[in-house]
């Protein structure tokens, strides 16, 4: 009939014709005794592997456990065990959904309580900016923890290597090595670093000086004049001490609108990895090449 018709089918219509004869994946898998969702997920990710978006090793890592539990002895193939000792643990990251953030500053307060930061220091702040002019006005809330950049400007400039990048993606400070030159504070494009001037809340709050901040899981005893971390630079470390005992950072846990997500960017199936792939995702000052590990959803 196409021979005599003036209307030629579009490319999309050809595609639809092919799709019509394809079996529906979900229906087909439903008939098998095995897990339908697993099959669908694997098919989707296998396409990503072919497209080069996911590494084959990651694919195996993600599915090997569920494949063994599903197929038991029938399942023989697995990820190749790499011989060199490369880091395979989690690489932490955070996703903050700005549509969900209401600017209540709960994260800031819980961060302050958790990390016992002195007056004038806050690892996390919520930046508020008014956009537009009346009556077309909106307020933008931008929570700003440390970005834990993959190419951190602060680590680059530290003269003593006191500031360093941990394998798990967190930018840490060795306060016992830091000389307090504050070069990193000047170099950070996000203003995420603070200097411990040695002041405290002891006058308003009894017991403030009883414990030094538990950062990096170190017990430093009482907070005293002239004792580390006083005179050194401090920063957000994704509540490393909480991560070590299996808890989320304080800001993530307390966020009232669930605007913050925390997880492993090494795991392509984690919530954060999936959210970071969203077209809403962006990172602050991307043009500087710092490669932040905090992703925002606009």
């Amino acid at each position, binding site marked *: 009939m196409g021979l005599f018709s003036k209307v030629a089918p579009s490319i999309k219509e050809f595609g639809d014709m092919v799709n019509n004869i394809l079996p529906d994946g979900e229906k087909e898998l439903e008939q098998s005794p095995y897990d339908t969702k697993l099959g669908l997920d694997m098919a989707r990710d296998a396409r990503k592997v072919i497209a080069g978006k996911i590494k084959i090793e990651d694919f195996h890592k993600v599915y090997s456990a569920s494949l063994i539990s599903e197929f038991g002895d029938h399942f023989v193939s697995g990820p190749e065990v790499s011989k060199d000792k490369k880091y395979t643990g989690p690489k932490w990251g955070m996703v903050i959904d700005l549509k969900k953030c209401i600017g209540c500053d709960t994260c800031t307060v819980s961060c302050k309580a958790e990390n016992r930061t002195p007056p*004038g*220091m806050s690892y996390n*702040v919520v*930046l*508020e*900016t008014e956009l537009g002019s009346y009556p077309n006005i909106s307020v933008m809330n*931008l929570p*700003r923890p440390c970005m834990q950049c993959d190419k951190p*400007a602060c680590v*680059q*400039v*530290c*003269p*003593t*290597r*006191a500031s360093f990048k941990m394998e798990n993606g967190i930018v840490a400070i060795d306060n*016992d*090595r*830091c*000389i*307090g*030159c*504050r*070069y990193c*504070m*000047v*170099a*950070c*494009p*996000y*203003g995420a*670093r*603070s*200097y*411990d*001037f*040695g*002041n405290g809340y002891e006058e308003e709050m009894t017991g403030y000086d009883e414990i030094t901040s538990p950062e990096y899981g170190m017990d430093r005893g009482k907070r005293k004049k*002239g004792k*580390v971390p*006083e*005179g*050194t*630079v401090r920063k957000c470390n994704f509540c490393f001490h909480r991560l070590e005992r299996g808890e989320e950072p304080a800001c993530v846990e307390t966020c009232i609108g669930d605007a913050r997500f925390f997880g492993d960017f090494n795991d392509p199936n984690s919530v954060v990895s999936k959210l970071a792939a969203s077209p809403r995702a962006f990172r*602050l000052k991307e043009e*500087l090449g710092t490669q932040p590990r905090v992703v925002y959803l606009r």
Partner: protein
Amino acid sequence: MDTKAQLNQPIYDVGIKKRMNTLEKMWWLILSAVFILGVYSIIDGFLLQGMSSTNLSNTVPWGGWVAFYIYFIGMSAGSFLLSTLVYGFGMEQYEKIGRSALLSAIVSMITALTFIFLDLGRPDHVFNSVIYWNVTSTMSWEIHFYIVYLILLVTELYLTMRGDLIKLSKTSQGVKSKIYQILVFNKKEMTDIDKGKDRKLLKILGIIGIPLAIFGVHGGTGSIFAVLKARPFLNSGLFPIIFILSALVSGTALAIAIYVIKNKVQKKPIDVTMVKALGGMLALFLVIELGLEWYEFLIGSYGLQHEELATMKLMTTSAWSWSFWLFQMGLAMVFPLTILFVKKTRQSVNWILAAAIMTIVGVVGVRFNMVVPSLIVPQLEGLPQGNYYPNLSEWITTIGLLAMCLLIYTIGEKLLPIEEDETSENGVSQHE
């Protein structure tokens, strides 16, 4: 000095000796008093209270002491490069200021390091900066360069005056003689072979020293600021070069000021031709610096980058703008340039001295403008805008350290044969 002047010398001396003594006593007294005040301020502030004794904050973490640190690094740079005219390039006409320029380079360096040491939060950790070397950190490189540079300066000064030191060890008495004997390792005679060796060494040191000074120490210190991509106003390739230029400006001005003031106080004749030549050099450096500044501002503003424009606006129109217009553009640029361009004033030693002093004062503003304005502008919209003025404690410490600088310089002049004895057969005149 001709024979007539030499004959007149004793009579000339007796007349002013008394006046000199009282003047000198006053000098020592005032400097020591100010220095002791500064030491008190350091103990009270830096040692007992730490950084909370300053007006620094988390928004503006660097302030007055960093500005004075780069001020003195620049002074040292300029002085050293001036001395290389004599020892590196053999320009005899400047040899009167050769050693004094080297000495002021050393003293400025010591002062600069004292300032930055006071700015550290944990002075007890300071050696970590030498033990743990971060190869990507400009500051880490600088710390190492400073040490090498200081050693080089001291060696060079020592070699230029070794002959005179040997002479002094024979002519002076008591403790002084002992000190000189130790300084020259009990050497009795300066032979021609020794002189030849020293000459060779000086040349080698000059070859190492000039690039070390320009690229290592001074361009490097400029790079500490220029590499900061978080501060677009500083983040430019021109910045280290402007830093070197303003170093040359302040170093030349310092050399003029020291030479003219010293000879005026001691009522010694002034080499007007040399002062005029130095004045011309100062004018040249100022013009080049002005040109570079122009490009820095032109290209910076052309980019329309928010933070960069905000920094420039802050420098030129805010409540701090007096520091830019009066100090950076006025005292350290337009006023001395006018003096050095107008025919009547550029011929007069007094006017050249005035231009030099203006520059020395004005460059303080230049250094503050390199540090503070770009820190006041917040990195992200919504972060607090900074506010910084040095407080009283910072000023007293600063003035105390300035007194320390002058004290060390005076002690150096007193103890060491800094003044070139023209009848001497050693020293520079031999090196060419």
